[in-house]
């Protein structure tokens, strides 16, 4: 019992002592806790201001974007009256946002996509190719943005004349024209290559005698069903930006077959429709096996 009582007295004494000490210490504590609160308040205020500013700029940018999209980029600039510093900045930001969305949209429809590299000193363009809804290879091209635009590393095969394309569509000034032409060449090449692949897969009876790396020449061996005569059909894709041949010629032992009307419209058919589809119709019409 003794223990509890004394324990009781001692604990009470120590508690009282604690309270006395804490009361003495509180005033300074109180002061610095007050100071702390003040500083948090200031921080919060600055944060609120920043957020407000951001909202404002966003609103302006949205307004400008809407104006820009309606009348196209150029007129919108004159319409903004106050030439103050931040309005120029706002207009720039709006323009930047617009371009970004444009590029994203362009990429979605299978166009090319651009991404910044090595801390802004270079740009990497990725050109996706596709044919009849099927995505094929994606080619990449790095361009260095020093004083003059220079083509760096790329994985475009050598039979696509990248450098001459760059000169023809003077890349330095009009890069969109250059990328457009390049994308066209690459898509046409991918399309032609896909066609040759489909011909080999779908038409076992048709023999592909010759093609080349650029798929700009296609020589097919067709057989006329009844008389089993062999017909040599050469398709020449001189225009490398399109998937359709520019010249089709037919050779055969009996001379007048190429002249016959059926084969004439076969030639026009081959000129207008992709070769694997043309062969299907010719098979259906019974001209070839």
């Amino acid at each position: 019992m003794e223990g509890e009582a004394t324990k009781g007295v001692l604990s009470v004494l120590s508690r009282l002592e604690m309270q006395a000490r804490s009361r003495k210490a509180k005033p300074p504590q109180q002061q610095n806790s007050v100071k702390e609160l003040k500083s948090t308040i200031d921080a919060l205020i600055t944060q609120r201001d920043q957020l407000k500013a951001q909202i404002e700029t966003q609103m302006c940018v949205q307004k400008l974007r809407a104006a820009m999209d309606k009348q196209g980029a150029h007129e919108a600039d004159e319409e903004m009256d106050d030439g103050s510093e931040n309005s120029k900045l706002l207009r720039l930001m709006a323009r930047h946002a617009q371009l970004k969305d444009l590029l994203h949209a362009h990429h979605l429809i299978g166009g090319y996509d651009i991404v910044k590299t090595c801390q802004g000193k270079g740009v990497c363009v990725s050109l996706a190719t596709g044919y009849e809804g099927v995505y094929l290879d994606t080619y990449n091209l790095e361009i260095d943005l020093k004083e003059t635009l220079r083509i760096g590393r790329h994985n475009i095969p050598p039979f696509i004349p990248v450098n001459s394309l760059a000169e023809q569509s003077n890349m330095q000034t009009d890069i969109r024209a250059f990328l457009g032409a390049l994308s066209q060449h690459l898509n046409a090449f991918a399309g032609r290559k896909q066609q040759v692949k489909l011909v080999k897969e779908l038409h076992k009876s048709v023999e592909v005698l010759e093609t080349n790396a650029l798929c700009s020449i296609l020589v097919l061996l067709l057989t006329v069903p009844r008389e089993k005569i062999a017909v040599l059909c050469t398709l020449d894709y001189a225009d490398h930006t399109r998937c359709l041949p520019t010249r089709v010629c037919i050779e055969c032992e009996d001379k007048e077959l190429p002249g016959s009307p059926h084969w004439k419209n076969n030639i026009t058919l081959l000129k207008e429709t992709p070769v694997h589809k043309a062969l299907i119709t010719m098979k259906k019409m019974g001209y070839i096996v």
Partner: protein
Amino acid sequence: MDDSTKRLLQQLVRRIPTQMLKTTLEKWGRLTTEQQKSLDFTQPKWVLTENLLAFCEENGWTTKHITELEMIYVTDSPNQGMWYAFQLLDPEDDAPSVELTQFKEQFKIHLTELIRHVSIKIKKHTDEAVWIRIAWGDSFSRPNHLKPTYVVHHLQTPYVFMSSVTRKQKPLLSQALVLATRYTAIKDAHLSGRKLTAIRDVVMKQYQQVFPTKYPSPLLEQNQTASNPLIKREQAESSENRHQMACEAFGYGMVPQLQTAVYKLETKFRGITNKTMTERGEPIRCVVKFTSTNLLESFRNCASSGIASTPVTPLLSSITQKGRNFFVITDNGRGPS
């Protein structure tokens, strides 16, 4: 069946490894079925040679037939001897529409104009490339079939690959090629190697390259073992970064197997310590040669393991970028390319 054909057949059979001999002969198809069966490929090479010489007698094969057999063998295993790449320059406007038959005729006409005694055999192989075998003779001797030159060309591409060709024959061959492909000039591409497929892939960029993309997927490190949760790499990010830059410079996954790269340096010495050497006027001339069974893979490991500092110096990355493995480097940038 004169003895030159016999010697050619002997040399050829000695050259073809036994395991390939059976398939090559079958592809050649000039042996009758029972002759083909009677050949026992487990016997030593000289026994097989004797049998084939006997068949040669029987079937009356000529040198032409033997060269056909050789061509089948060479096109099937192109990685023999050294191959040199050449680049065709500024095409005429009808160059893109050159056709195989047209190329064949033009090449034969032009080469025989330049040198009368030459035997040319041209074949389109399954890899869409035009293979040319040239046996050179000079003004009064018949073509020597024992040391032919092989030329490989993909139509409509600005590149031609040649096996060993002597200094005398090279201008003739180049001239004929330029005229046949409707280009105006040809120059040494400074790319050579033992594997034709390798130098062709480097030049045609037929290997996987890595490019910065908007949605970077982490490249799989080759030795990416299933990482145990207890083991953590502190500097994982920087090693991944090094690996990314290494793959950007030397390609990802299977890379063309070049064997060597040679740099002729004539550059001033710039040492931080000794001054006399730095002020010395003339440059230091030295030749640096890198050799490995798979050069690009070795360089890639150098860069990703940190032995070569990243980003990779343009000297090394221009092997893949420019498709070259011989460089002359002087103080004012690249030497005469």
